């Protein structure tokens, strides 16, 4: 795609997300869709993290763990220590990144299914820890999380207190969609910078990468930390909206869905997780009317999609679009 085409696509996307969608929802009165779209946005952020680990050649089935950890860190900071949500949000991400460095150093030496199995276990470990630790309040969880407060610089209110808003759903939608756009812009830059090229070199051949002088252990941990940071951000956003978190807020199922959204959107495309999450989420809701057959139809369609489009939905691009755009 030409530069002009790219700019047009970006402007068009932002216009649809921030202008057309709210307008459509306002005219149709389907304000329940805000919740759905907000969820898609925050799940896509966590999915983006999984995509990063795919990009260095690792199958990550443990993103649910980081979403859960991020959610709890944010909840505990806000509720127990009275820290502002706006500070807790990045702190939750950073906590997850730090945790993933400790975990990642030993396990990133594993490849293929071995790495995949270990990360799968993480989600369960995180859930059981949340049940057992005193600070997470066990199975009762944390359920009295206040809405995000105002951001004011020198007395000028930049973001109003969410609890004073008539339509906090719209505010959450703008928050999640805004962060999603920022996250994918950052990811796009990463993939198209030299750092992305080095990540790709890891994905293709780690031995060759180390022979050309790449510190592969370091780069793997950096990529995994970015991945977990995004997982934590996704989790923290989730709790601010649901105003509660329980050990079962993110389960193995969610971990698998994050991974699936990457597959479904296309591993070769930065924006794959957005499309993947959107299709996964809306596909499931759409099939609600089929009742007991919901799961059956859903899984059949997913299997068919992966069989027919092994490179993801985005491989159905219009002629002339290049890989990776």
């Amino acid at each position, binding site marked *: 795609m030409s530069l002009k085409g790219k700019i047009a696509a970006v402007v068009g996307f932002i216009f649809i997300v921030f202008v057309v969608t709210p307008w459509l929802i306002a005219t149709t009165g389907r304000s329940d869709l805000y919740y759905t779209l907000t969820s898609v946005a925050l799940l896509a952020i966590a999915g983006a993290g999984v995509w990063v680990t795919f990009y260095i050649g690792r199958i990550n089935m443990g993103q649910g763990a980081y979403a859960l950890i991020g959610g709890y860190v944010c909840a505990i900071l806000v509720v127990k220590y009275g820290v502002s949500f706006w500070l807790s949000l990045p702190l939750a991400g950073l906590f997850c990144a730090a945790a993933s460095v400790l975990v990642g150093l030993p396990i990133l030496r594993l490849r293929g299914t071995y790495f995949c199995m270990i990360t799968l276990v993480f989600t369960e470990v995180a859930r059981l820890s949340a049940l057992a630790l005193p600070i997470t309040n066990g199975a009762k969880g944390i359920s009295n999380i206040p809405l995000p407060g105002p951001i004011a610089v020198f007395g000028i209110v930049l973001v109003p207190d969410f609890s004073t808003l008539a339509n906090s759903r719209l505010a959450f939608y703008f928050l999640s969609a805004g962060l999603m756009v920022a996250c994918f812009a950052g990811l796009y*830059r*990463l993939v198209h*910078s*030299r*750092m992305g*090229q*080095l990540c*790709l*070199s890891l994905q*293709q*051949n780690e*031995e*060759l990468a*180390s*022979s*050309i*002088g*790449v*510190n*592969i*252990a370091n780069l793997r941990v*950096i990529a995994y930390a970015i991945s977990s940071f995004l997982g934590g951000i996704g989790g923290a956003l989730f709790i601010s909206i649901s105003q509660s978190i329980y050990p079962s807020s993110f389960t193995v199922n969610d971990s698998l869905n994050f991974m699936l959204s990457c597959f479904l959107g296309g591993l070769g495309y930065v924006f794959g997780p957005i499309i993947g999450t959107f299709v996964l989420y809306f596909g499931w809701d759409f099939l609600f009317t089929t009742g007991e057959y919901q799961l059956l139809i859903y899984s059949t369609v997913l299997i068919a999609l992966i069989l027919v489009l092994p490179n993801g939905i985005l491989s159905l691009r219009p002629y002339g679009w290049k890989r990776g755009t």
Partner: protein
Amino acid sequence: MGELLQVTDVTKRFGGLIAVNHVTFSVREGEIVSVIGPNGAGKSTLFKLISSFLRPTSGEVHFKGERISGLAPHIAARRGVVRTFQETTIFKSMSVRDNVITAHHLRSKASLAGFYFGTAVARSDEKEFARSADEIVNFVGLGALAEERASNLPHGHLRALGIAIGLATNPTVLLLDEPFAGMNHEETQRAIELVRDVRGRGVTILLVEHDMPAVMKISDRIVVLNFGERIAEGTPQEIQNNDNVIEAYLGRVDESIGL
């Protein structure tokens, strides 16, 4: 011409198997040295020991007087000892040019964050990598295929790409893993020329190889391994007339059974 690379009394055991047994030799600046030996002689293991992909059980490898054995491979590469691989080890989904651009990693002055934010240093690095990659791709004779996906290259060209990737790191010593294996006569001739040209750029070369005629043609000195031990070392003429070598390759004359 000083000694650039010294392999001193290196031994590698895998459990009960001694793959490399007290091997000592050295490589001088600007030489082409070959390591040969029958299958299973320990050539590949020795190769990995020198490039720090394996850690020796005992003994040391020194480069410019500093120990490099036991370091991580990327650190040995940073010092200037870089290995190539056999043909399939390339960045398959990248173009030929991108393979070589990526391999310029050691020449970067900017940090990863610098590249991410596109600082002035990073941009000048990128410009320089692109220029240098084009030069190297043309040098190894892949100029016409620069935009081709690397996995589509035929056999002989993959080897050239491997050498191009090695050259991009700006090595002092380039270790070549069987650069002539599986080539026909004509391809071997071209590869020999290429290796000589690489030496012409000021790169010292150590290669492990099976193809005896090619080795005889190209090497300044040859080290012969058998059952993990160094059994001979010398110029191609000396090696051709060495009894130990002939015995290792052809077998011993055993008078008791009339052979």
